[in-house]
């Protein structure tokens, strides 16, 4: 199945798939204050305020 590139990151160019976003979070390239949006959302939501902070917690746990 084709993966849709749907996510935008404030300050980054281009659009990203779910997998790419998760990968960026896990690699620490998207910081908690970075904001995400997609065409269905009219607002930017900071990573730390989104449910995808779940993956951030993964990073923390792995570090610990």
């Amino acid at each position, binding site marked *: 199945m084709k993966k849709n590139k749907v996510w935008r990151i404030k*300050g980054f160019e*281009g659009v990203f798939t*779910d997998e*790419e976003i998760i990968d*960026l979070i896990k690699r620490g390239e998207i910081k908690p204050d970075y904001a995400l949006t*997609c065409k269905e*959302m*009219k607002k930017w939501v900071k990573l730390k305020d989104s449910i*995808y902070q*779940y993956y951030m917690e993964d990073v923390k746990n792995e570090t610990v």
Partner: protein
Amino acid sequence: MNYLPSKLTKLRKHYNYSQSYLAEVLGVETPEYMKYENGSAMISYEQMKRLSSLYHIDLVEVFRNSDEVELYEVNKANTDEINIEFFTAKKTFIDKIKEFYSQNKITSTIIVFLLIMIIIMFIVMKNTFRPFDPVRENINRLSVSETTVVYIDDYSGVNGSGSNTNGELSNLTSSGAIKVCEGEGFTIILNDDGTMTSAGLISKYANEIEGWKNITDIAVGNAHILGLDSNGRVRCTGDESSGACDLADSRNIKKVYATAYGSILMDNDGVLTYCGSFIGSSSLKNYYNIRDIASSDNILAILCNDHSIDVYTKNSMNYLEAESWDDIVDVACGDSYVAGLDRYGKVHIEIDNSSIRNEIEKWSNIIAIDGASDYLIGFDGKKIYGVGNNKYNQFVKEELIKQRLDMVSNVVYTIDEDYVSVQFDSVSNASGYIVSIDVGIGISRRIEKAEVVKFETENMTEGKNYTISIVSVGEGDYTDSDTYKLNFTYNKPEETYTFDEGEIMSEEVFIAYLRGIGVDESHIHGKEGDYCEDDKVTIISTNLDGRTLTKSELLNMDIEYTYCKVKEE
């Protein structure tokens, strides 16, 4: 903390769905869905969309990490039926079109032709009659009081200047401000998540408004605060002695306005009601569907739906009229002036003071205006312009303006086998740079100094065009620069060969090396030089010494070398 599990459970139980049904909706097995509800797995973007559609909530509400979501009284059976009917109807309609086309091909072609003509006419008309600039109709970004000027910058942050006696300009920390309003000694901010924050307000009122949720509009008088929630319900708090809060709890309202001691509400039909006292109030019964209102002790100015301004004044001020102004998108007034901003960013003013008129004549590209009793402010999105009394330094421009950083200059790029390297000159006051290439994942780099940035060429395609984008990042008094863009075509560079100067090798090895590259022997010319130091014939010098050459350059040149001659015994 991950609030998704509690949100999912709350929504599912409210609508009385089973876990297996949700699993089916999200395209997973029930045990997998159960993991979402116990927090051991995360949903994808596609599943977020399905949940948003199923529960009739905004995607943001699904994505935001909170379990506070709107729970609607929806009959799920009815909803399902409606959806099914909708899709069935859609299918039938499309089928009918197909059937009609196959039976009436000529008629259909004419209809399509006419439709295309209508679309072309629409595009021409649209360009001829420019719509109102939405930026200039967004008048929420600026607010003034008698002593302060506050505005929302490009980053949805709130900035202010003037008197800070009550702390009205302190800790304006909102990062998602969509509207700002100044009262006498306090600032109220509406955030993009429907919450309100304040500065300078006594804690009783501050706590009250911070409890208001899902607010879509705010307005502020001298000492009262209005909030309108997403259900059209009006909230009001503050000094109620003037009667300014008498219409609190009104329903079906779509917009709220405030005068110093009064409130004006516009309902969903555009009908106006008011409470409190202010000049011109009795005239409001003649209006509906207005765009904005400005008021002072002496003037009420109404921005009508047709973008004209009607002015009501005390009898002694009949000279104030704004009938000649067209295409007005914002209005302001003071004790002795009325001003309007037109769709082209020009500010018009009626005032008995030629120097103020001349000063305003110089303003351009203004997106919002607001005024207090004895001064007027214009805002172009970046800078504050002011005329009139400035005794509280409300519009000391140098303190308010955030300067936009310059774009980077002298950008050069080089392409080698593995990297595209980008280099540029630094920009004064930049706190960093964001450099990117539009090649997909992992192509943005944030760097602190103007140093070489390398991008792997692994995912680049030979012959394809790419764009290098660079933004100088601003902090404090500076905002980010515009984006510098540089296009290039990615061509994998030819392999190169470097020949060190004075490298000692035998004639035999030298020629073998060149032939290995593919150089034809007819291009290699040797001549005898000095005697050798021993009995080995080595290369003394070549015309390749100290040069780096591509393969094609090597193949198309004559290579000359000098070798030593062996001493005869």
